[in-house]
């Protein structure tokens, strides 16, 4: 019997997430205004449902049962595809996430225009844009354009940057 790895993985993740969610539900403080259902009532039901669905997916994964999904859809890694090649898209996604996380950490300090220009240039470079003098220029122009749209035009303040403000 062949396991269905996707269902099994998803089931384990769902049961783990449900356990965490139910643990946090138990931490919800009681209120003097509590009604019959209470602040924990609905989250308990949702957590229970998530756990049950996760358990069903685990069960289906262990049985290796057909899950009724239509064939086709996203291309699975071909048998001949080596593991590093199969992992490459996920590693690229992880690296992109790293650039975005750096942006989140940087923007309050460096300010919107500088950090967004770096973000655009960084992602474009990482995604394979041609390395030329145009790359920083387009990134800066794009960042300034977005700043103009949101800040002066729509009056939505964007981070000025603690580094510049303290000077």
């Amino acid at each position, binding site marked *: 019997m062949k396991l269905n790895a*996707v269902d099994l993985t*998803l089931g384990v993740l769902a049961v783990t997430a449900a356990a965490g*969610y139910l643990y*946090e*539900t138990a931490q*919800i403080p*009681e*209120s003097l*205004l*509590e*009604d*019959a*259902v209470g*602040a924990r009532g*609905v*989250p308990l039901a*949702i957590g229970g*449902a*998530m756990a049950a*669905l*996760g358990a*069903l997916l685990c069960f289906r994964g262990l049985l290796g049962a057909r*899950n*009724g*999904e*239509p*064939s086709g*859809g996203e291309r699975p890694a071909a048998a001949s595809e080596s593991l590093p090649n199969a992992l490459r*898209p996920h590693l*690229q*996604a992880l690296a*992109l*996430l790293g650039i*975005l*996380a750096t*942006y*989140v950490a940087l*923007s*309050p300090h460096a300010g*919107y225009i500088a950090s967004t220009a770096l*973000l*655009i240039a*960084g*992602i*474009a*470079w*990482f*995604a*394979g*844009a041609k390395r030329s003098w145009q790359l920083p220029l387009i*990134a800066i122009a*794009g*960042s300034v354009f*977005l700043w103009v*749209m*949101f800040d002066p035009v*729509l009056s939505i*303040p*964007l*981070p000025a940057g603690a580094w510049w403000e303290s000077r």
Partner: protein
Amino acid sequence: MEPLGHAVHALVSSWAIPGALAGVLWGILGGALPGISPSIAMALLLPLTYGMDAVTAIVLLASVYVGAEYGGSIPAILIRTPGTNSASATVIDGYEMARQGRAGEALGISLIAGLVGGLFGLVVLVAATKPLAMVALAFTPPAYFALGILGLSVVAGLSGGSLLKGLLAAAIGLALATAGPDPMTGVPRFTFGEPDLLSGIKPLLVMMGLFAVTEMLVQIGEPPWAKANAANARLKLPDLRMMKRLARPTAIGSVIGTFEGVTPGAGGTIAAFMAYSEAKRWSNAPEEFGKGSPEGVAAPECANNVVTATALVPLLSLGIPGSNSAAVLLGGFLVHGLQPGPMLFEKAPEVVYGLYGGLLIANIAMVAIGLVILTPCIWLVNRPKPWLIAFVLALVVTGVYSVHQSVFEVGLVLGVGVVGYILRACKVPPLPMVLGVVLGFMIESNYRRSLLLSGGDYSIFYLDKVSLGLLLAAAALATYSLWREFGERAQRERVEAAAT
């Protein structure tokens, strides 16, 4: 003919016509920018209306609403980023069409379906405001709870062939909706001591993470998708044959949009999802849904544009703002000393009829502006993929930050994007999760309010006639979806068995 005379007079004796044009343009711009909801786009203009006459001010604000609801579908189709909540159902088939190099066709369908929906909604608003207002009055907490359950009943139709995974996605969405203050007691839940979570997680943030961020994380590791050729890189309006095909989904969107619009609190998002699900159910080619079906674009686009007009029914007739956008419009009325409600038609008919005329102009202007701006938009998204990914993500993080000026929320959206990436790798459909986030608060708050009213007696859910009707409809929809899904699965298995 007297109302028509009122409308024409109100429009020509004020700046309402330029106001409608400017409002639509501003609305499309706001709606197309992720993070700027229709209500924010309207609220930004509210201070400018202080010095205007009442007709111009109200027409301007209502036109922003029309433009923003349409504008939200442009990034939904082109870059898988719904500009507004109600554009999230358009993402699925609209973006798929864009990936196949059919962006111009998808945008053309969205434009025409939006026009049909907007005009249909306007006819309903003009002809049936008073009788339809009674629908709004019939809605009690158990009926709202039942309406939420009816919305959830379409999960099976949105599950893409795996009901178990669809239900899991809906449960994750419902779980996300419980973050923030408890709807009855105000006790903070799942906030982890983070002040930014004290007001809960906005559905728009989940959608931007789930659609835009997830898509870019996937795209970075994939080869470029089909580029539109010269002919397809232009806006393409549907021809007569296509219009005939779109008649059914458009009719479905019109009926559902009317019902959801007149119900305060229901809104365009639920209407769009239900219209998508029902259009798939009644389609001659349901297998095309999710793979770039024109019907999958027309139904939700029509429904959410019907709502832009029918959502004004409870506001004009009862003074009840059924959505954030209607609340801003109510603000516009109050600023000019007008109190929406039954007396509005007697006291200020020129404003009411001017609004009707203004909405007609706004819908026509929407098409005219769309014809001008959509081809350049398609050109823009046909730029080299590295730049597209970079600019989409820059736009998303800027849009998310602009909602509450919160860096934490930018991180939250990235986190949702990662969850979406994992779910996509496991072939879990995203739409049920969005539905769970959108409906979670409505279901929980009205469930508990109902039980509070009945002293814990569950019979309130079937003694209330509207609630009973909606719950029966939900049960019928869910049963039909299950029957159809199991039927299709059995058929697939028979075909595969015969092939081997």
